[in-house]
C-alpha cells in the first residue's frame, strides 16, 4: 500500500463519514478522535529515519487499519444515535400512533427491516475482515440513510402537542388526587365527630 492511497481513503471515505456523524450530533465523539490520534502516530513512524523500511510498511498498514475502524465507527455511532430516537418512538404508543407522518404499522415494519439491514452490515463486516472492508462501509451507509429517512417521518409539531397534552393530563390527575384526598379527609373527620 502507498501512503497516497491512505490519504485518498481519508478524503473519500473517512471525511464523509465524519461529516455525517459530527453534523448530525453537533459534537465531536471522543472515540473517533482517539482513533485519529493512532493514525497520526503510525504515519509519523513512516517518516521516522530511525525506523527500518519493513517497519514503515507495517506502520502504514496499521494507520490504514485505524482509519478504516474510525470510518466504520462513525457510521455505527450514527446508527446507534438514530436508533435511540427510533426506539423512543417505538416505545411511546401515543407518539407511534399520532406523532408520525406514516401509519404505525408502516413505521414498525420499516424499523424491523432496518434492524435486519444493520444485522446484514455487521455480518458483512465480520466475514470480510481483512478481505474487502469497503463492502461493509456501503452497507453501514445504507443503514444510516434508511434510518435517517424513517426519522424524517416524525412530526415535531404533533409530538410537541402530544407531550403538552400528556403534561396537562398528569397535572390534572395530580390535582384531582390532592382534591379527593382533602375532601375524603374532611368527610372522615366530620364522621368521627359523631362516633
Amino acid at each position: 500500500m502507498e501512503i497516497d492511497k491512505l490519504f485518498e481513503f481519508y478524503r473519500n471515505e473517512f471525511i464523509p463519514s465524519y461529516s455525517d456523524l459530527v453534523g448530525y450530533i453537533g459534537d465531536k465523539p471522543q472515540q473517533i478522535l482517539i482513533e485519529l490520534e493512532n493514525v497520526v502516530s503510525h504515519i509519523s513512524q513512516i517518516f521516522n529515519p530511525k525506523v527500518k523500511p519493513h517497519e514503515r510498511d507495517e506502520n502504514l498498514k496499521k494507520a490504514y487499519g485505524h482509519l478504516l475502524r474510525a470510518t466504520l465507527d462513525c457510521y455505527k455511532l450514527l446508527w446507534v444515535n438514530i436508533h435511540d430516537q427510533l426506539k423512543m418512538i417505538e416505545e411511546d404508543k401515543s407518539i407511534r400512533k399520532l406523532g408520525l407522518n406514516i401509519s404505525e404499522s408502516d413505521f414498525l415494519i420499516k424499523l424491523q427491516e432496518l434492524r435486519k439491514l444493520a444485522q446484514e452490515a455487521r455480518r458483512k463486516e465480520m466475514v470480510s475482515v481483512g478481505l474487502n472492508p469497503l463492502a461493509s462501509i456501503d452497507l453501514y451507509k445504507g443503514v444510516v440513510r434508511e434510518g435517517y429517512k424513517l426519522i424524517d417521518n416524525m412530526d415535531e409539531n404533533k409530538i410537541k402537542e402530544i407531550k403538552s397534552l400528556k403534561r396537562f393530563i398528569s397535572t390534572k390527575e395530580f390535582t384531582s388526587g390532592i382534591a379527593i384526598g382533602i375532601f375524603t379527609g374532611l368527610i372522615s373527620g366530620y364522621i368521627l365527630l359523631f362516633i
Partner: protein
Amino acid sequence: MGKTVIFEERYGVNMNDFSTTEEIDKVIEEKMGRKLQIVKLDDHGIAHSRGTVFKLRKYDIDRRFDETLK
C-alpha cells in the same frame, strides 16, 4: 469524493469543497453558532473503568451497535 448521507443535505454544502475535518468542523460551528465539544457517546465507556483504552473502546462501540439489533 464519496457522497454523504446527511451532511450535504442538512448544511447545504458540496463535499467536493472539503478535504479535512477542520473545514467540516468550521461549517458545523458556523451553523450552530458555537464551538464543537468533545463528547463520549457511550455511557458504558470502559476507558475509565479498566486499563487500556484502545481495545476496550472498540469492543464498546460494537457492543452498543449489537444492542440495537435486539
